[in-house]
């Protein structure tokens, strides 16, 4: 299928917002993620530009990475953030209900490199699943037009000074609610589709790690030489 090149001209690439994870994290933890982004630039570059049209999926993957690498006992949800980013929060809940994600957690949990690679590959798979859901493209467009620009930070809309205009951004919250419902319903109706996508991401991560490991082993050998 011939894809239009024009969106690439018009839309700037989405930049991850600072400190907007669903979890309470330190600057150092955010920094670690940025360093991995630089280290695995080759993998990050393989993300299709259109995938970035749904920025919360991009941020969801970062949260996945944190969930994989930080032990549950040290990971605390930020209640305010879960309220603001309700779409991402519901997506996170749906994904972590799947059985395959437990397998992934078992294999990659705690290993920063593998978790990062998985989160990047999962990103593309989730986008695929997301775009196949009925009416999701309309909702996504509506959401983006409500935010007015996809790179904008929606957190200030929930601040106290805005409550004089409107107690909370009703339209935005309503769309987010609709998307969240759609995620839940589609998972309940047919969990196999999402399970398959996660399994695919798992397999691709393994193959990516496999090619990296051939040399990784040799590097260890080289390092251990006198």
């Amino acid at each position, binding site marked *: 299928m011939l894809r239009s*090149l024009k969106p690439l001209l018009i839309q700037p690439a989405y930049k991850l917002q600072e400190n907007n994870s669903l979890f309470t994290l330190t600057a150092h933890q955010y920094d670690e993620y940025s360093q991995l982004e630089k280290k695995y*630039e080759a993998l990050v570059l393989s993300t299709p530009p259109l995938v970035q049209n749904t920025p919360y999926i991009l941020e969801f993957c970062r949260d996945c990475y944190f969930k994989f690498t930080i032990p549950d006992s040290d990971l605390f949800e930020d209640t305010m953030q879960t309220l603001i980013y309700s779409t991402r929060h519901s997506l996170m809940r749906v994904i972590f209900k799947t059985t395959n994600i437990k397998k992934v957690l078992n294999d990659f949990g705690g290993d920063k490199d593998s978790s990062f690679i998985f989160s990047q590959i999962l990103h593309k798979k989730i986008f695929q699943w997301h775009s196949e859901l009925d009416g999701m493209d309309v909702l996504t467009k509506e959401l983006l037009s409500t935010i007015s620009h996809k790179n904008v930070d929606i957190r200030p809309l929930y601040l106290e000074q805005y409550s004089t205009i409107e107690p909370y951004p009703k339209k935005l919250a309503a769309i987010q609610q609709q998307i969240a419902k759609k995620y839940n319903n589609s998972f309940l109706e047919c969990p196999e589709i999402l399970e398959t996508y996660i399994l695919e991401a798992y397999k691709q991560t393994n193959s*990516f790690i496999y090619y990296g490991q051939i*040399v990784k082993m040799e590097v260890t050998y*080289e390092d251990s030489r006198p």
Partner: protein
Amino acid sequence: MKTQDLDDIELKSNSLHILFEEYKIAKSNNNIELELSSLMQLLEQSFLIFEEYLIFDFFEYCENLCYELNNGKHLTRLYELIALVYYKQKDFDQAIKFYKIGLKIAIHCELHDLACKIYCHIARCLIQKKQLEDALRFAQAAQCMIKTFSISNQSVIIRFHIEYSEILYLLDHRELSVENFKYLENILTLDNLFGEKANIYWMIAKGYSKERDYEIEYNALIECYNCLMMTGHFQKQIDVLEALLNCPAKSKTSAEQNSFMNKQQKLLTYLQKLSNSFSFKKLFQKFDDFYMSYDKIPKALDEEAFNIICNEWINDQPHLFLFTLDDLDELEMDEIIKKYSFVVDIFHTISDPNIISVCGFFNNQLFFLFKNTTYERINYQLPRFLQTVEQQVGTITFAHVIADDSLANNERALYSAAYAQHYYKTKAKLKMS
């Protein structure tokens, strides 16, 4: 070593001229699809011969055409070409920047072959920047892509193996490098893929040069040169000849050394000539583009069109003006275009808009052909015009000829008369200075 005469180069350069003409025709016919494809062919061919020659002039224009026609394949290749030029100029950061843009487009358009090739190119740049770990990750990403999308394009797979072998070799994983290289050795036995084979031989030569095994390096370079002759990549041929000249192999005879030197010199001289002739063509094209966007003035003319116009007007006693900037040799092409454009602009501002005039660029001179203009009128306007030009552009030499009876029906004679006048004026100026 195979012999190569200049006919082959002539043939290749002729194809470049033909492509240039094809591009001009497509442009004048407003067929933008044909225009884009011929322009891309022209840029590809010019890259093989000159490496960077035309890409900088046509890059933006070609980029816009690609977006207009939504042609991701050409757009990716365009970014790849410009990145290759920057790579050749050793500006690796800039090369990586353009490769990344190309990669983004290739991934967007699902052109997996091209994306994989660009991953390999980025790895090559990173090797040059001595960032081997990063280069390895890019090569691995390419490898992963080959497997994931079952890429069967041999050129891409060979490119990957070349980069991967070199990275492994540089990272001191000799065994892995040799294992990986086995695939490339099989390619060398094939009767096609000369470009790829040349790259493999070049890599072998570099490797053996580091090991100081100059005999194998020498033989690999000769094979590399033979392969390059089949592809017509002249700049690479020059590089290989340079390497052959510097290779201290014992088996190299003085006759061979002389032959390399002659071949390199011949290639360099010929490319210089070709480059000069293309400078002129490029200048014409710029003039064309300038006038296309400037509807007040008729389009610039080439020699043929010049003759036709002269033929039509010869009976109406046209006036022919020739102008040359005096410091032409010292100026850059862009500067010449700018100055000439300015002269044309002034000339048309001061002349009567009802008078039909034709202007163009011919034999390094700017010419104006006027019809139905009385001598008195021109005589009155000319000093004003020259004064303005002198003030704003610099000194110019000009010639003015009216087609009287002796020159009637002979456009060549008209031009020759103007040229002769111009020539003597220039000489006189030189004598005075």
